[in-house]
């Protein structure tokens, strides 16, 4: 049996020329379902976000941060909105297993934006770490969710985050108590699998308590080739001296659109590391907004994007140095083939009192064809004088001298090119601190650069068909 979303009161197909109005209309009609079990505090934040969305609507290329990224053609689809609670218990391994074979993780799955679990929606590990559904967490630990929810997501500046906040229902919740080190990485698998064009808005909240340590691996996949639009918000709070590592792997179908809004709030001496690898994805916009609110924070951010055909990837990084003695570093690298377009807009703001700041920013692109386009804007805004800030950006092609060197040693042009591209990507891949994951990503990158990677590689069900086809979930087994 094929999973078909049944027609219900909570569902509506909307014409997107008026998508904003319809969304607002839907909100009015289905308030109860949307508000669900959210705490009054969350609903207040929701109401504020809704008013922002009502005022600003979807972002347009007139906005500085969306200059080269136009959502309009993407929104021109008859999306299916589903606000009925579909979080459920099911054996997720039946449909999907991560194939990073040696990676031992606490794995969590979101299917079409809804939480899918084996036993309980919310688990408390022996060390006190809470992992599970955000909706459930709002019921069970309202004091935690109320303290953090919406405190990092800047709905005033980010239109898409406002939209997500207005419609927040479920997503991932993680709380690592003070002093706890989570020994295994926590893995979040975000699967989109629907017959209809879906519009999804998962919401994640990650809290790392004082002196705690955690690693989060976040994978975005789509199992079908249907049109989908995902707009996620992730808030990460790193309390004093906490260490958070966040890996994100995006390997989605050509027809999928993904906007991720990642907000990170860092307290004193905290350490946050992110690494975003975009292997495939029709349209991807990653917003990373980091606030270094207290002294001595470390913040490192890496990104790699390998795009071809007419894919579009936009990485927007904003780092607010609001306190002295913080260090931040950004390195984003990309290889663009065919008619792909990559946008990088980075901004480092160093506030007046943020003395002794060290901030570096680097974006490097390789264009393989004349139709590929790279737009890069590494911006610095500095109001403190005792700082060391630098930024650099390059757009170019493979070094002909290096090419000659490899060719003169008997490598064919194709191999030489691949070798150089793999080395180019290697600078980012080598920054991955989990060995198994690094190996796997290295492998994927190599396959990707050889043109052998399709989204089917990610799935272990290994259907017999060689073609990457629509993948149907057999709901009867669930």
């Amino acid at each position: 049996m094929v999973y078909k979303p049944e027609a219900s009161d909570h569902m509506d197909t909307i014409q997107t020329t008026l998508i904003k109005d319809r969304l607002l209309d839907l909100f009015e009609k289905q308030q109860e379902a949307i508000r669900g079990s959210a705490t009054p505090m969350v609903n207040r934040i929701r109401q504020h976000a809704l008013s922002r969305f009502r005022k600003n609507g979807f972002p347009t290329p007139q906005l500085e941060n969306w200059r080269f990224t136009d959502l309009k053609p993407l929104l021109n689809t008859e999306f299916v909105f589903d606000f009925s609670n579909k979080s459920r218990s099911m054996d997720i391994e039946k449909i999907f297993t991560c194939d990073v074979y040696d990676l031992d993780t606490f794995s969590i799955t979101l299917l079409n934006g809804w939480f899918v679990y084996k036993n309980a929606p919310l688990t408390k590990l022996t060390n006190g770490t809470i992992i599970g559904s955000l909706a459930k967490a709002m019921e069970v630990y309202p004091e935690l969710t109320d303290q953090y929810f919406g405190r990092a997501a800047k709905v005033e500046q980010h239109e898409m985050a406002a939209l997500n906040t207005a419609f927040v229902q479920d997503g991932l919740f993680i709380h690592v108590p003070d002093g706890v080190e989570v020994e295994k990485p926590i893995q979040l698998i975000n699967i989109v699998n629907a017959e209809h064009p879906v519009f999804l808005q998962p919401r994640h909240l990650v809290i790392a308590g004082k002196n705690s340590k955690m690693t989060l691996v976040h994978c975005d996949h789509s199992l079908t080739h249907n049109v989908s639009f995902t707009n996620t918000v992730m808030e990460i709070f790193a309390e004093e001296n906490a260490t958070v590592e966040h890996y994100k792997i995006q390997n989605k179908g050509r027809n999928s659109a993904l906007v991720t809004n990642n907000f990170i709030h860092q307290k004193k001496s905290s350490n946050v590391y992110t690494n975003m690898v975009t292997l495939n994805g029709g349209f991807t916009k990653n917003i990373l907004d980091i606030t270094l609110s207290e002294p001595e924070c470390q913040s490192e951010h890496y990104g790699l994007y390998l795009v071809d055909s007419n894919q579009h990837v936009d990485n927007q990084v904003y780092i607010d140095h609001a306190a002295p003695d913080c260090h931040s570093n950004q390195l984003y690298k990309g290889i663009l083939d065919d008619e792909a377009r990559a946008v990088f807009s980075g901004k480092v703001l160093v506030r007046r009192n943020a003395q002794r700041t060290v901030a570096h920013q680097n974006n490097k692109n390789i264009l393989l064809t004349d139709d590929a386009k790279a737009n890069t804007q590494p911006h610095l805004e500095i109001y403190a004088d005792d700082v060391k800030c630098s930024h650099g950006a390059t757009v170019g092609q493979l070094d002909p001298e290096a090419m000659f060197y490899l060719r003169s040693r008997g490598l064919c042009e194709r191999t030489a090119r691949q070798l150089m591209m793999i080395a180019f990507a290697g600078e980012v891949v080598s920054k991955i601190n989990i060995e198994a994951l690094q190996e796997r990503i290295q492998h994927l990158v190599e396959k990707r650069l050889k043109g052998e990677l399709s989204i089917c590689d990610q799935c272990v069900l290994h259907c017999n068909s060689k073609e990457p086809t629509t993948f149907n979930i057999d709901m009867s087994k669930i």
Partner: protein
Amino acid sequence: MENESNKILEEVTGSEYKYGFYTDIEMDQAPPGLTEDTIRFISAKKKEPDFMLEFRLKAFRHWQTLKEPEWAHVKYPRIKYQDLIYYSAPRKQPKYDSLDEVDPELLETFEKLGIPLDEQKALAGVAVDAVMDSVSVGSTFKKTLEEHGVIFCSFSEALQKHPELIKKHMGSVVPYRDNFFAALNSAVFSDGSFAYIPKGVRCPLELSTYFRINAANTGQFERTLIVAEEGSYVSYMEGCTAPVRDENQLHAAIVEIIAHKDAEVKYSTVQNWWPGDKEGKGGVYNFVTKRGICEGENAKISWTQVETGSAVTWKYPSLVLKGDNSAGEFYSVAVTNNMQQADTGTKMIHLGKNTRSTIISKGISAGRSNNSYRGLVKTTRNAENARNFSQCDSLLLGDQCGAHTFPYLDVGNRSSIVEHEATTSKISEDQLFYCMQRGIDMEGAIGLIVNGYAKEVLSKLPMEFAVEAQKLLSISLEGSVG
């Protein structure tokens, strides 16, 4: 150490504007306000050909549909365009053959600036076309230029004598539709300079124009047009200082440069309009559109600028590299002090094959000023093998100032290479220590370091200008340089 260095910085950066004096020359002014009548008045006053009036009116009508841009990283009170005076000219319309006939008061003004006209004349043969409040009052070395067929005169004179050249080239690089201030300038420009270098001529002199804003409450709308025909060469210099006035003065100039095949134009400018007092009161608003086009193959244009003045600067000398193998350069030193705000940089638009551009920008911020670099490098699909290198460094003196860098890189083909580098830092304690350890006092050490920092750009200025540039740098950061 810290305290002492702060004190010296304060002294260094706290000096008052030295060129603040006001020359009392009678003015012939248009009534304040801007209507089609004002434009007709200006045009009639200057006895302009019909096409010029048409152009002005078209620009004015377009300007009325535009909104003042707000994207620049500067803040200033809104300009009341209807309160400004759009035309003011010295009443005695002088037509001098020699400097002796020039109003002695005017000559004195230039002497106060330290660069008297006659000294200029002697200095390496510089032809000076001095502009005081919009109308040219003296030209020198005309004869030498005439012998080579070079036309160098005021814009109004060119309109009378060479209307066909003006008609052909004016607005071809900066159309009146370009932006808010370009439209305003196109509608009301008072005067400016025109230089035409015929085919194959290497201009024997360095052309130089001194601009000054004089009357209070006067918008200054200069317009410069430089046309370099095939195989020609010219070095053009423009410098400006402005007297102390309490009300903000608007300066919205346009500079257009056209370089044909194998031609080379070197444009250097020192800008030292009055920056306002320590509290940011008064000062000139400098909203300038400067653009050059390398029309033919192997053409080259270079911009060199030293920006020390103006309360608010909004200036992006740009280049369109249209001809194959053409080259563009941009060298800039921008110093901001007290409450000054500068948003300056360049645009390099690569259209032709094998085009090259270099950008070197050095920002120095002191006091409570804000200094931004904003630059665009764009290569289109056809600009094969285009090459750009940009370096934008910022130096911060004091902990109340800001230095910002906003580069935009848009690359549209695979064979072009675009690189951007930037650093922001304060004067290194190590360098200071090194200098002082060798017996140089704090002030001298700061001067040495700042001078060395800007040298890469200052060395690109023509010799005569380099002297003035250093002088201005030292006035802006008193005692630290020279």
